[in-house]
């Protein structure tokens, strides 16, 4: 084998490795679950802790201002705790430090849009479109699109692919 040929094959192998690596990362993106203790404590008793990255700042502000009527439940918190959690969620939001993970969740939203649900975002609806229309959410025992771990068994660990 000539010197040139060896170099060429090495290059080929390297690029193949690189390619499969990015492709792998694309398909297996993990959103690391929050570890901010006050947020974990306040926001994971009734449902899994939704990642801050999946909504824009404006959404978290609106959600955190309306805890007295939170999807029909009372989720009120002492004012100091409420403010600390709001700071964390808005900092890590999809248009904040959580941009790297959150960017795609914000696709299709305009500046200032503040959806109250991840399950209302255009990205979510597109990814779950067929399921939503077929009423599979009820049939599959998840009862609600908000019940991510019913289908994404490892959602609490940050994995959302099938």
């Amino acid at each position: 084998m000539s010197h040139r040929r060896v170099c060429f094959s090495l290059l080929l192998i390297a690029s193949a490795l690189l390619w499969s690596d990015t492709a792998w990362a694309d398909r297996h993106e993990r959103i690391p679950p929050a570890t901010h203790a006050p947020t974990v404590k306040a926001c994971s008793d009734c449902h899994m802790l939704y990642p801050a990255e999946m909504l824009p700042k404006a959404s978290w502000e609106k959600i955190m201002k309306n805890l007295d009527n939170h999807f029909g439940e009372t989720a009120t918190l002492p004012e100091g705790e409420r403010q600390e959690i709001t700071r964390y969620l808005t900092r890590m939001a999809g248009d904040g430090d959580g941009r790297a993970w959150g960017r795609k969740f914000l696709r299709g939203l305009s500046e200032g849009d503040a959806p109250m649900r991840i399950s209302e975002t255009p990205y979510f609806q597109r990814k779950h479109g067929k399921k939503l229309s077929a009423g599979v959410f009820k049939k599959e025992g998840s009862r609600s699109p908000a019940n991510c771990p019913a289908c994404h068994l490892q959602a609490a660990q940050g994995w959302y692919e099938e």
Partner: protein
Amino acid sequence: MKAFIVWMVGLATVVPQHAWSGEQASLLEKYARQARQESPDFTVFQPQRGELFFTSRHSGGKPDTPACTTCHGATPTSSGMTRANKPIEPMAISKTPSRFADPDKVEKWFGRNCDSVLGRPCTAQEKGDVLVYLLKQ
């Protein structure tokens, strides 16, 4: 001093003796003090009364949560389910030993849940009755 002895003797009769953790015992003591303030007729917490309160349908709250057992499961040893479909671990201390160990958590949830079920805060006696009932399970 005399007042203190009377208080201690009173406490011994109000709170039945069990091997509860310090947190659980002092929470019950707090509720006993409050219950006495709320009603001069109060004597002791009763698990039977707690069971009745915990398992009965009430009115005054939200229509879809008429009872504590709507979310907490039919018996204290069975699991329940939140309105957002997340499982709730059994309330019985024998099944979930970590229960009622954080007084702030207990107060937070009595506040929310009594409002959902009764449309009003629970009295100290209701809270104490429920606790002695669940701590016996």
